[in-house]
């Protein structure tokens, strides 16, 4: 998962050609090994128990969110504070389109496989509008306005009861005709990889350069002929699109949707904490850390039931500590270690 500078001398061999191709989509050899491990994990005891597979699914789901979130937070330095709500918008759109039961107002009965994409597009369009409205202003406007839109979306879901059943929640149909968790795990893993690779391709293109320039020094970027607003809006909309897409998976995997558990601001903060602890602007940092984190959190939750919310306090403390003491996060630590090792090799 890590994209580190590879030695150029390998390029001639076929192995070198493959690593070069992998590098273009942001996967280093070490990253590839980790990916394979993560993919095989649910086949190996003790991870093959159903509840463990569910944790893995949760991990991959959070990892994918972290990538999409970091795409805006790490690259154009704008925090999409309505991320969870946009995810929920995608989930609800897909769930309503797939509805067949007469409890709700409409029964389109669309296949979830199509609905997920429509949910993604709806979330992307809302992100586009929101970005167009706020991203010509300072970044804090976008963050606060996204928060407002997020709260409004949650309020709408709660209030439009004939469409969403409000706080009672919806029970959308499942994506697959099975009760096993394993197929879902591979679906979300593929989705996670798709998010990573497509966003990597964007950041490796001239768009990525523009994002970096905007994130670092807006005036200099503008002087170089970059239209910051256009790039920022594109970035924001793309991230929202992926949020909606992942929301569709949530809806049709868990089969239960309530505004509070999905769209609340604290859900955005959880992803945000992951991204910061993993290393902002690295894309892989949050993805990497999501898996061990879910296991750690779920372990705490199931073993310390007399201390509700302890895992959330740890989330917050870790995030604040990382921000103040080591703003580069895990990815920064990794890069530093790689530099050190290289330095040792050169001198010796």
């Amino acid at each position, binding site marked *: 998962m890590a994209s580190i500078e590879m030695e150029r001398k390998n390029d001639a061999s076929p192995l070198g050609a493959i690593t070069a191709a992998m590098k273009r989509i942001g996967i280093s050899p070490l990253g590839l090994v980790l990916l394979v491990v993560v993919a095989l994990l649910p086949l190996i005891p003790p991870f093959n128990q159903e509840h463990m597979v569910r944790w893995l699914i949760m991990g991959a789901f959070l990892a994918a969110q972290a990538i999409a979130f970091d795409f805006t937070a790490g690259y154009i330095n704008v*925090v999409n504070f309505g991320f969870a709500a946009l995810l929920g918008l995608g989930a609800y759109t897909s769930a309503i389109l797939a509805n067949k039961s007469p409890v709700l107002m409409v029964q389109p009965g669309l296949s979830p496989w199509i609905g997920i994409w429509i949910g993604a597009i709806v979330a992307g369009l809302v992100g586009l509008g929101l970005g167009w409205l706020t991203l010509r202003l300072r970044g804090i406007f976008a963050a606060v306005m996204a928060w407002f839109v997020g709260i409004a979306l949650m309020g709408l879901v709660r209030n439009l009861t004939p469409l969403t059943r409000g706080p009672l929640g919806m029970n959308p149909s499942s994506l697959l005709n099975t009760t096993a968790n394993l197929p879902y795990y591979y679906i979300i893993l593929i989705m996670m990889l798709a998010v990573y690779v497509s966003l990597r391709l964007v950041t490796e293109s001239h768009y990525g350069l523009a994002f970096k320039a905007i994130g670092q020094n807006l005036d200099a970027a503008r002087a170089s002929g970059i239209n910051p607003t256009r790039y920022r809006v594109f970035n924001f909309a793309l991230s929202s699109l992926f949020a909606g897409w992942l929301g569709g998976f949530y809806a049709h995997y868990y089969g239960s949707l309530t505004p509070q558990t999905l769209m609340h601001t604290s859900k955005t903060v959880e992803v945000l904490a992951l991204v910061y602890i993993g290393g902002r602007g690295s894309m892989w940092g949050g993805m990497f850390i999501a898996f061990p984190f879910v296991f750690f959190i779920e372990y705490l939750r199931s073993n310390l039931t007399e201390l509700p*919310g302890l895992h959330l*306090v740890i989330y917050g403390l870790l995030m604040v500590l990382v*921000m103040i003491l080591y703003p580069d996060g895990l990815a920064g630590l990794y890069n530093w270690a790689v530099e050190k090792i290289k330095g040792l090799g050169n001198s010796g």
Partner: protein
Amino acid sequence: MKEQSSLGSTLVKKLTGNLAATIVVGTTLVLAVVIGVEGGPSQVINSIVTGGMWALLAVGLALVFGVMNVPHFAHGESFMVGAYVAYFVFNPIHTSLKENPNTFLGVTAPFLAMLAAAVAGLILGVILERLLFYPLRLKTKSGWVMNAFLLTVGISFILTNGTTLTLGPNFRGIPRYWDVPPLQVGSVRVAVDRIIAFFIAIISIVALWFFLRQTRTGRAIRAVSQDELGAQMMGINLNFIYPLTFALATAMAALSGASLLFMFQAYPTVGLKPLYFAWYVVMLAGLGNVVGAIVGGFIVAVLQSATQLFTFTVTVLGHEFQIGGIAWEDVIPTFVMIIVLLVVPSGIFGSEVKGVQEQ
């Protein structure tokens, strides 16, 4: 009073010659009259009381943003801390008063609770600033606003969940501070608690105004908000101004949490709604604009009452959708904000922070 007239004249100056402000304030006044006719004068008095509190909260938010460039997201948690402190100070006194009544203590105990909350806010503010914002300032080279914002998000997350962890999620509230019958104002009966809460808000705002205008330290705070580097060159110590500003804002939020304990109660997530409305006020009035935040507080309170009061139903495909009512309180502000951002991005009274446009 000199300071009050200068506050008034600044308000007048803000309102005249500003089309957007005139339109919004005019509409609000009309709306207030309509609310008075439809919902009775008690509704109007309610909005004024709420408006005072939103103003007090928003002033703190505007001050912190103006002086420290921190978009404060943990302001609601200061409100929460204030509510808890007031509860834990007031409740034991109140229980002991039941056994041996004491009129003097009965009258002063609520003020004692509020004072304790304000002092707790001051201390919390200084601790947070020294412990978290100071090291962050040393670490941050660029993108301070966004980093500070995220830090406050983290603080809010820790305080909310930490409170749940230690005190539990249950509500701790009091029915009223003063066991006296409501006051008769014309044909309307208003609870004494509300009137006192309103006056506490107004007195605090005027006192802050006086402090910022008339004292040396207050002028130093305003100097920092205008030009940090210039202020430093004039010998102003930022390591004194920043903790002071943050402590003042936190204390004001804690004070409003304490004085509204009878309305909101104390529970871990009580701060979310006040935070939301304070941000609404600040965005509407203009980021960092302290005077604008005072007027904005009342505008938002009137809009809020209007949202609660006017409901209508829309029928689509045989299903009834109710629009308006208290459940729409979260939805309407977003639409208002969208219009504001489209027409006057720097807020109706103009932002006093350098550059609303990204630079």
